[in-house]
């Protein structure tokens, strides 16, 4: 006989409710346990310590003291329940007898953390029968020094006593660390480092008015600037003989990059060759000394032209033109492809009739404006200008007192090229 058992409907609902409740409970436990697990992992990482021991005086090789000090530190840490992880030795400390956190921090920042939550740096120095150790606790996760202590002990017969005293001074600091009194949060909204690129090799870089370093290998890394992200920073770059860069750059990210334009060499002197429409059978040279580089200059020009005798019974005439002027660039700066400068000055054209002894013609003139368009090609340039000259008509002259121009009404127009230094 087969007995059929029929479950009461109320019992069935209760079981289903129980299963649902259990599921929710499990999920709740998982949700609660996950952060606890993360907290536990973080606490575990705080107990992993990388010990860095280095002499402050890099000229003295003292591996014995280093080894003894390391052993003492590691024993003390293990006594306090911390785990020491292995790591590479740091780069040498800068040769200075004064312990300096500012000098040590970059060294610790350059050490690979190997998963440690703490780097404990011990920078020691034996000097004047005293034993100094500068202990630094450094958080490699946020690159921040947490604290430190300077231990000092009298040198004994052996180094052990000094080490023991120093480590004893360190132990309370470690205990405070473990108690959570040293705590660093990763800064938010601050720029950690600025990489400056471009400019010119060996240029000094200034943030606002503070020198932050010199460009080497095309870059300069400026750590720990602590500007707020989004700050507009005034950056200056200077190098003797070059135009200064002075500009505003945004700092858009924690690790910002500033691309400096190439620095342009200042022009102190240039030489030019010119040819003048209206004085065509000739050629001229010019030299300019820049009183203010690429801005204000003094010029000296010479142009020589020969007018062949138009018939067999006429003589050739040689023209020697000299002028001295001062000029200034008025439109666009030295980086521009096209620039404009104006100038003024005085000059004279000496007309010498070849083979005729006697007086030469002298046409003195004033240069009025001399507006010059220049095509800037770096160290060389091309230029074009009308020679706006008013002749004074003094002495034995050919032109009289008037604007120098040809009978077609055109002033002489000069075109030429310059090379600058």
């Amino acid at each position, binding site marked *: 006989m087969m007995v059929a058992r029929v479950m009461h409907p109320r019992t069935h609902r209760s079981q289903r409710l129980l299963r649902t409740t259990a599921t929710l409970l499990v999920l709740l436990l998982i949700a609660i346990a996950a952060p606890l697990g993360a907290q536990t992992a973080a606490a575990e990482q705080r107990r992993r310590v990388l010990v860095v021991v280095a002499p402050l005086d890099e000229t003295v090789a003292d591996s014995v003291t280093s080894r003894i000090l390391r052993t003492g530190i590691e024993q003390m840490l293990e006594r306090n329940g911390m785990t020491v992880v292995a790591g590479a030795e740091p780069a040498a400390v800068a040769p200075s007898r004064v312990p300096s956190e500012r000098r040590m921090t970059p060294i610790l920042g350059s050490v690979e953390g190997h998963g440690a939550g703490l780097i404990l740096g011990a920078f020691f120095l034996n000097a004047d029968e005293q034993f100094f150790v500068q202990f630094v606790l450094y958080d490699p996760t946020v690159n921040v020094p947490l604290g430190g202590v300077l231990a000092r002990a009298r040198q004994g017969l052996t180094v052990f006593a000094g080490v023991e005293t120093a480590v004893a001074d360190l132990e309370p600091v470690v205990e405070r660390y473990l108690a959570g009194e040293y705590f660093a949060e990763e800064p938010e909204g601050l720029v950690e480092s600025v990489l400056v690129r471009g400019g010119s090799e060996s240029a000094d870089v200034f943030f606002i008015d503070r020198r932050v370093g010199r460009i080497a290998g095309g870059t300069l890394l400026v750590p720990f600037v602590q500007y707020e992200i989004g700050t507009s920073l005034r950056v200056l770059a200077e190098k003797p003989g070059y135009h200064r860069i002075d500009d505003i750059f945004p700092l858009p990210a924690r690790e910002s990059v500033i691309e400096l334009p190439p620095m342009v060499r200042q022009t102190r002197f240039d030489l030019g060759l010119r040819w003048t429409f*209206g004085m065509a*059978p000739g050629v001229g040279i010019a030299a300019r000394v820049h009183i203010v580089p690429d801005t204000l200059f003094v010029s000296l020009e010479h142009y020589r032209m020969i007018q062949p005798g*138009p018939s067999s019974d006429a*003589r050739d005439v040689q023209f020697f033109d000299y002028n001295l002027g001062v000029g200034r660039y008025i439109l666009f700066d030295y980086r521009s492809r096209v620039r404009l400068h104006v100038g003024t000055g005085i000059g004279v054209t000496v007309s010498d009739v070849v083979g005729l002894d006697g007086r030469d013609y002298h046409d003195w003139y004033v240069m009025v404006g001399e507006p010059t368009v220049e095509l800037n090609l770096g160290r060389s340039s091309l230029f074009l200008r009308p020679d706006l000259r008013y002749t004074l008509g003094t*002495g034995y002259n050919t032109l009289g007192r008037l604007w120098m121009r040809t009978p077609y009404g055109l002033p002489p127009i000069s075109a030429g090229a310059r090379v600058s230094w």
Partner: protein
Amino acid sequence: MVIQSSPRRARPVVVALLTLFAVTACDVLLTTPFPDFLGYTDITLDLGGRIDAIWSGAGSIDYRMEVVVTETDDPRLLLLVEPPTESGSSGFQYRGRLLVFDADLNLLNTTAPLTEIDTFGRPFVFGPDGNILVGNTILDGNDGSAVETLPFLGLEGPGVTVLGFTSPPAQPDPSAVVFSLPAGEFTGFDLEWVRYSVPIDEWLQLADGILPILPPGNRPSSAADGFQVLSAAFHATDDQVTLLLSQPSVPRVVAVRFSLPALLDGTLGELVPSMGAFPVSIDADRPLDTHTTMDGFLLRRRDGWFDYYRWTPSGPLELVGSRQRIVGDRSFNRTFAFLASGGQQYMYRFDPASRILTRYRRWW
């Protein structure tokens, strides 16, 4: 039907235009501001000391330079130096002096007017006796000294020297004929002329008259459209005179040739019948200096060009050959004179700034 231009046909036109542009551009760009006559520089003479001796006071000095020449006389270069005439207490005082040179710039004389009320000025013309008429003063043709003064007629124009006519009716006396606008007129349509003869040593005014440039019924209504008389040349081979006139309102320079015997006989009605009838007409705005010879005329333009135009030396007037042009001088205060007589062909320039007189060899 659609007609399309062929690129092959257009190519020669483009090439021709480009060539024309290149030639024109080259000419424009290769021209210098400096005079082309510098290479013809010949002799220079510093007149600073002599001019200081005439006048070293305040005020600017006016200068005028002319060459007088005939076929038989030695040419003379006359530089008129006219200091300011104001004189504080005594009012007007003419201080003008005439520096008389030969063609080689040898100074012959520094001549003053014979009387205090006389002045120097146009005309500058040789008389048939070898003496020179300057304004109303007769100068000795050899040494430039003042000889006598004629009645002042107020006619300031060019003159020609007539030694005799080749064709009947032959005139009995050699003479000098001067052409001028009526005194005080800036432009006009009539020329006054006067003929001087020289019996023994006394200049006589033999005849004078009016020579219409245009017939009275065919003239513009405005006197401003009238003419100025620039220079004149006498063609001894056929007794003709070529007159060079300026019409500033157009502006142009015109030339006309007429028979001098017909003028003296009174048979010449007018120079031309209408405005457009001048045989020579050239665009030119009030030239700064002109000089007329039998072979052509020189023009110093205000834009600095020096032009020389050749014309027929006798017979009907017309231009021959192409214009000869050089870069000249744009200065308004310099004065130029030209000598074109036989083997002596020179241009003279006087520069008030340096007060240096320069002779140039012929460039035209």
